[in-house]
């Protein structure tokens, strides 16, 4: 009898081990720089993680939040000890830590968001907003009455400068007399700073707002004064349904699903990632224009944008609303028949920065320091 029991147990354990082996899961670990409750950058990555978990069969995910930028490595160690085979690090400051870990763990796959260093087992990825900011700028230029548009910026780094630049190019494309007034808060997430910066801009006569900060603060402050704004990163239209005109939305899951599916399929290995760089924009569906998903222009503002007419070189005379939709279609087209950073572009000092007919490369966009014409205010490291 005892033997029988033992045999039964052995068979049971054995079969479990076999089924366990048959359904071997892919574990992916995520290192977040902020709390997943920030309703901004980290929140958006976490939404992407959850969707990827549903869409990639056999995928299991782990995550660590609020990791200080200098301390990526110990947390990567921890995730790998827990069985993670793919590690995503989601902040620029994790770049060197991720690269060091990629060297120490040649059998694991790494992907780093928003950076530029790669290795055979380390890719880079980014869903960038500059095209979306250009579309928002077109709308802002049409809506300002004081000809002063405001921008609350997080840090004066190339990424944010690129976004403000694209936004300002959009504003000027429909309203050459408008200026874009910039205030820096030196934080990614600091509602009180975003709030007082917005108040300072309002005091100076700004009447339309865009921003880079991970909370709906700017939207809320502007709405209280009855002023329109563009939401950032998360669907913030609900915080001010009558005042959010449009905004920028991200779909990190597009990148996560694509990347992890290719890992599962064996297309991505620990040896062939040296040149894998996702720079995904409107055409890839990684970003979207709107204050809420599926709403590129708030119905509350549509008629106001239809009432403003502009003349363009390539599309003739049309309303700003139609211009936004045309440009959106051109940039969503896989052939990308329009890009805001197409020369000739001069910076605000008058220097030619993009020659006629040329489009800025990803490398140039990633290191962009110049200020576009119309930008008013401090611009640290301006060439």
């Amino acid at each position, binding site marked *: 009898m005892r033997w029988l029991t033992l045999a039964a147990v052995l068979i049971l354990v054995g079969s479990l081990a076999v089924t366990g082996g048959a359904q071997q899961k892919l574990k992916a670990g995520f290192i977040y720089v902020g*709390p*997943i*409750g*920030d*309703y901004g950058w980290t*929140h958006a990555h976490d939404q992407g993680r959850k969707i990827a978990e549903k869409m990639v069969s056999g995928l299991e995910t782990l995550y660590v939040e609020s990791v200080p930028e200098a301390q990526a490595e110990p947390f990567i160690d921890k995730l790998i000890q827990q069985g993670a085979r793919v590690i995503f690090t989601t902040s620029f400051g994790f770049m060197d830590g991720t690269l060091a870990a990629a060297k120490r763990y040649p059998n694991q796959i790494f992907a780093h968001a928003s950076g530029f260093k790669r290795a055979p087992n380390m890719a880079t990825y980014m869903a960038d907003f500059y095209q979306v900011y250009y579309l928002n700028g077109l709308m802002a230029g049409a809506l300002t009455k004081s000809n002063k548009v405001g921008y609350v910026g997080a840090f*004066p780094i190339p990424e944010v400068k690129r976004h403000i630049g694209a936004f300002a190019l959009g504003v000027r494309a429909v309203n050459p007399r408008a200026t874009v007034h910039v*205030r*820096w*808060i*030196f934080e990614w*997430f*600091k*509602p*009180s*700073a975003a*709030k*007082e*910066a917005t*108040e*300072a801009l309002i*005091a*100076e006569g700004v009447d339309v707002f865009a921003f880079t900060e991970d*909370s*709906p*603060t700017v939207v*809320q402050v502007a709405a209280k004064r009855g002023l329109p704004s563009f939401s950032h990163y*998360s*669907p913030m239209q*609900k*915080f*001010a349904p009558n005042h959010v005109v449009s905004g920028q939305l991200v779909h990190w899951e597009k990148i996560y699903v694509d990347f992890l599916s290719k890992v599962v399929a064996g297309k991505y290995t620990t040896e062939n990632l040296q040149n894998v760089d996702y720079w995904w924009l409107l055409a890839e569906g990684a970003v979207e224009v709107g204050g809420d998903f599926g709403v590129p222009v708030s119905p509350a503002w549509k008629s106001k944008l239809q009432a403003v007419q502009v003349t363009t070189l390539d599309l003739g005379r049309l309303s700003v609303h139609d211009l936004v939709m045309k440009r959106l279609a051109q940039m969503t087209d896989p052939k990308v028949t329009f890009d805001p950073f197409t020369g000739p572009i001069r910076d605000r000092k008058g220097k030619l920065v993009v020659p006629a007919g040329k489009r800025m490369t990803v490398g140039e966009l990633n290191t962009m320091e110049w200020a576009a014409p119309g930008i*008013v*205010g*401090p611009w*640290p490291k301006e060439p």
Partner: protein
Amino acid sequence: MITEWILDTLIRALAVGTPLLWAALGEIYAERSGVINLGVEGMMILGAFFAFAVAHTSGNPALGLLVAGVVGGASALLHAFLSVTLRANQYVSGLALAMFGLGLAGVLGRGWEGIPLLNTLPEISGLTYLGVVLAVVLWFVLYHTRLGLVIRSTGEAPAAADALGVNVARVRYLAVVFGGILAGIAGGFFSVAYRPSWTEGMTGGTGWIAIAIVIFAGWDPLRAVWGALLFGALYYLSFRLQTWIAPEALRMLPFAFTIVALAATSRRRRGEGAPEALGLPYASGEK
């Protein structure tokens, strides 16, 4: 033009200063009784979360503030128990409370981010004026009543107060819990008035600035009013002045003020310094 500048700055000083003032006033009473509570940030964020959750569920932001006060008081009770009854290191216990509060509010707040609040309180509301009135009342109580004398004596010379029949532990408990109630309400101000919504870490270090203001104010409730308003004004101006002054330099302005203020108050007159027994546990019958 100039009047507009002054008016704008004054309004922003009041808005930014309100939570600082409430939190600082509470901390002044706790410290006057001899207990330093570094957990202000933790109590504030708990207040912010509960105020939002209650205001959102009930539709009544004032009720949210009330609950925020209760939650702040309850979390301060924890600090009082550790530092008064168990005589633990007050600095360690306070820091633990700050981290505990931030962590707990973060966990409880999951899923509450991204929800707009329909009924909110105006930014410059009764809370602002009440804060100033409260400062006057607390100043009067502290310097001109027997209760104030009792509180100050437990902070300056607990053994002497004990000898005179003062229940040191009870006074300290009450002062710490009172401080927690005010910190909770200060936190609630963020989520139902200043920026009506919930986001993890939304108090953004205000609790630490409040503690600095307590020191700058020389533990005096009336001077805390000026400290809070001055910080609020400088904070606003640090963005307003960016057109003319480098933003990197302006960033330091409100904080540099704090350091200068600390240095200035180190040359203070007798009786204006920190309470003698601040941070020291007291046990009856011990020297």
